[in-house]
């Protein structure tokens, strides 16, 4: 393969660094008598690994983790503007190219052809280039939105609790660097609002996703955030890029539900704004109550095609058999077998949720809380350790079950002021601090719940901290984010964003991961992914 840096990335990088882009102009521009608004951005996002371990070096020629050029185009067309009827059409289009596999031969070889192709551009689904495209209709108290949309139901950052409508694409970045919202996958849906005049200014919202299912896109095997395509050590496995992770990815993709009304997702939410007086103090509560019925964004094994849960099962038409067979074939260097369809199933579950935020004068802080109760969340089962002592990710799958799960989160946003700082360097003098607590509890017996991560955990607790401030009249934005899980894993990010003028944007950051047990959770598995990242972009 030619070691040619992607032409687009290189050109953009040179232009942006030297500032050759036009420096004057509007934030967005309008056409057709202001009926059409056009805005967009071009970004290059680079990750440079600082802590690649010897075992991983066999899968890398360089320390580059990501080199992704991304362009976005946002169009808003005001189609009808009457007093009682407004119709807008909103489109958000995107295109990207991830170039590390183009410049790093070993990285290229570490991914399957299919994974790599879908990873390097918006090619996972044929409509990936459309992030959002919908008709937005306002008539009196009604608002109807039809088309591909992204829904934001969360009040808190860094951990998801009730914000579950759109699945995430975790292949390129982590919540520490980018907010969840940047990683959401749009879904074709019908969404409606009714703005009532009832007490509490109630807004009723409903969503119907008629069968457009998307699973979570987990980091691909062999890519920066994914697992290595083979075990640690110099095992000369062939075919190299097709490890258990790639096989499972392929199984999930091939089991994805068809576009069918039967696979519809429904969700309802009521949003209110109520005033309460507690001990003479007024609290204005922004609250929501929601209900969700849809498929889980990860599948469970199809029980009918599970096969015998023992290592002697080599039947490639069953899930356990295929994975055993693949392991042996890789050791022997035999040909790779086509992954059969339908080995996994995507199952429905229900969830009820609630959220609330208010300013608490005594704390001088805004307190936000979220809660969700997931009913019948599909789970895989495995033998307990006394029957099969292998690590959780290697355990045979013995069946499926369901568990109820409770999620809760509370964040406290408190700005800390420094008058001394506010008079220096154009600083805002305000440190926006957010301290968060998040808990998750699986109800019922968890001893046989098989999870690649968080195996046999009944509960988990996370603490988050975000501190953000600004200098030079919002030109310089230093931010620190940290997540700590009580299983002793977590990550921290320190980043500085620089916005010198109207259009150019720069961001430099350092990511630090730690984990006592890398299999405690997915992010914990990235414990060696310490990196420096740099993002440069042009917005208009």
């Amino acid at each position, binding site marked *: 393969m030619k070691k040619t840096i992607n032409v687009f990335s290189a050109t953009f990088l040179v232009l942006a660094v030297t500032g050759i882009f036009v420096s004057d102009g509007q934030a967005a521009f309008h056409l057709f008598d202001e009926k059409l608004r056009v*805005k967009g951005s071009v970004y290059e996002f680079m990750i440079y690994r600082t802590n690649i371990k010897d075992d991983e070096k066999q899968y890398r020629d360089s320390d580059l983790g990501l080199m992704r050029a991304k362009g976005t185009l946002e169009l808003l067309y005001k189609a009808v503007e009457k007093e009682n009827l407004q119709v807008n059409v909103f489109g958000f289009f995107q295109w990207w190219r991830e170039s590390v596999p183009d410049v790093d031969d070993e990285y290229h070889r570490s991914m399957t052809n299919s994974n790599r192709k879908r990873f390097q551009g918006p090619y996972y689904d044929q409509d990936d280039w459309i992030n959002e495209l919908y008709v937005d209709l306002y008539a009196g108290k009604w608002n109807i939105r039809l088309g591909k949309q992204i829904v934001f139901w969360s009040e808190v950052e860094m951990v998801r609790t009730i914000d579950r409508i759109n699945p995430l694409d975790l292949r390129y970045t982590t919540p520490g660097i980018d907010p969840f*919202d940047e990683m959401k996958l749009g879904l074709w849906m019908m969404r409606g609002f009714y703005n009532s005049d009832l007490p509490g200014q109630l807004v009723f919202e409903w969503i119907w996703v008629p069968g457009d299912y998307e699973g979570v896109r987990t980091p691909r095997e062999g890519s920066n955030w994914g697992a290595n395509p083979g075990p640690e050590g110099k095992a000369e496995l062939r075919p190299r890029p097709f490890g258990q992770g790639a096989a499972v990815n392929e199984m999930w993709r091939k089991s994805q539900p068809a576009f069918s009304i039967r696979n519809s997702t429904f969700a309802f939410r009521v949003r209110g704004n109520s005033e309460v007086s507690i001990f003479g103090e007024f609290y204005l509560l922004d609250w929501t109550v929601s209900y969700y019925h849809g498929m889980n964004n990860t599948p469970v094994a199809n029980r009918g095609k599970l096969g015998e849960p023992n290592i002697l099962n080599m039947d490639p038409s069953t899930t356990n058999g295929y994975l055993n067979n693949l392991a042996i074939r890789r050791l022997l260097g035999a040909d790779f077998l086509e992954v059969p369809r339908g080995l996994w199933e995507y199952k429905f579950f229900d969830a009820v949720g609630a959220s609330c935020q208010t300013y608490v004068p005594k704390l001088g802080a*805004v307190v936000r809380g979220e809660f969700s109760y997931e009913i019948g969340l599909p789970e895989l089962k495995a033998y307990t350790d006394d029957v099969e002592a292998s690590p959780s990710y290697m355990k045979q799958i013995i069946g499926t079950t369901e568990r109820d799960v409770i999620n809760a989160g509370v964040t406290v946003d408190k*700005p800390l002021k420094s*008058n001394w700082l506010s*008079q220096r360097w154009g600083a*805002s003098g305000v440190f926006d601090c957010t301290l968060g607590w998040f808990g998750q509890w699986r109800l019922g017996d968890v001893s046989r719940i098989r999870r690649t991560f968080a195996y046999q955990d009944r509960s988990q607790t996370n603490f988050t901290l975000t501190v953000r401030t600004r200098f030079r009249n919002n*030109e310089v934005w230093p931010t620190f984010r940290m997540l700590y899980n009580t299983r002793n894993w977590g990550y921290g990010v320190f980043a500085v964003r620089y916005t010198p003028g109207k259009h150019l944007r720069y961001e430099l950051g350092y990511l630090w991961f730690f984990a006592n047990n890398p299999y405690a959770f997915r992010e914990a598995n990235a414990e060696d992914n310490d990196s420096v990242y740099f993002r440069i972009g042009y917005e208009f």
Partner: protein
Amino acid sequence: MKKTIMFALSFLFAAQCFAEEISFPTVSYEGEELAAVKLWEKSWSGKKITAENVDQVKDFLHEGAYNAVKNPEIFGADAIWFEVVPYRPYTLSKGIIEATKKYAPNSKLDEKGGLVGYGDVAGIPFPQPKTGIEMAWNFDGNTRGDSHTEVQFGAVVDCKTRFERETEQHRWELYWIGRCDVPPTPAFSKEVNPRGIARSFFQRHAAPADFVDTTMLEIKYKDPHRMEDLWVYTAMFRRIRRYANNQRTDSIDGTDMIYDDQDGWYTSVLHNTYEFKGREDLLVVRHQDAAKVERIKGQGYWSGLQRERANLWVVEVKNNDKNYIYGKQIWYLDPEDWHMDFKVMYNRQGQMWKMYEFGFDEFPSYGGQTTPIFNTEHIVDFLRNHGSASKRGIKEVGLEIPTTLFRTKSLKQKSY
């Protein structure tokens, strides 16, 4: 019965006597003072004031404005100039005159400085004020035509490096109480305003690029002890964030202005103590043709302002919070409709830190009346040679804005 009638008659008579003492509108100059001003204007009206001749009008300029013209390089300009225009009294709306004459005779303050009956009255409560706090309540009584919409085009300017960042906001502002012109007056009924809102604004950002479609909703309450509520929908994160009240001293979008600075002073009158410092005859911007202001790239202070003389009320303002960002502010209030012509902010070390100057003009408002509203502004930081200059395209004054706009649902629904 007889006693009741006698009491009512004597009350009406007393009220009439008080009403006769009310003089409103009050102009800057009358009689000999006005004649002297007109004489001065014969020499200066229409003249362009630059660094070369600014010393000749130094007595009528605040030192901040004088320094900007004399030393334009501190605000990134080769030259900063203004034009002297003749003094013109405002033509105030019938509504504000009638409301002032109706309610001012009975205006009084409670022991904590609160305006008795606040929310059920309108107009300027103390047209002939004696104390600083009465002047502050007069400033609060100006409702700018009760509602208006505008689009603000601004620039955040680093005058040293000449870097600029554009801002553009579309704003809808509504007064729920103290209404003089647009029915219902003097306030919305309890059914429409059960939460006791005094004032609200809704704002949508159109620039800079990162903030396009960010929306903001702020609600100020009638209860002076109740803190304002502020929500921001950040389009970048698509989330409605409630803001903490102690973020009010944070700068707005990187400008030199903090949330409390909006319109001069946005929050409750009772957050400060006030001391009347006397009157000053100064050149301020009361009738500005917004098309005439100009600046070059990197200039944080407008040229082309049209200044006229006015006899301003000067009030020293100190926040009740000892740790407040400003050590003190000096407000310069217009004697005619009690808007703020400019204010100067000092840091806690006593240094002159910032100056916020408004350029007003009279705009058509409800029922064929006119209302003074500012259409240009700049706020400059003397310590850092930084400025934020903006123009406001006033779209409509005294219009009927649906109160439902000022709900949190609008934050998302008016955005993408």
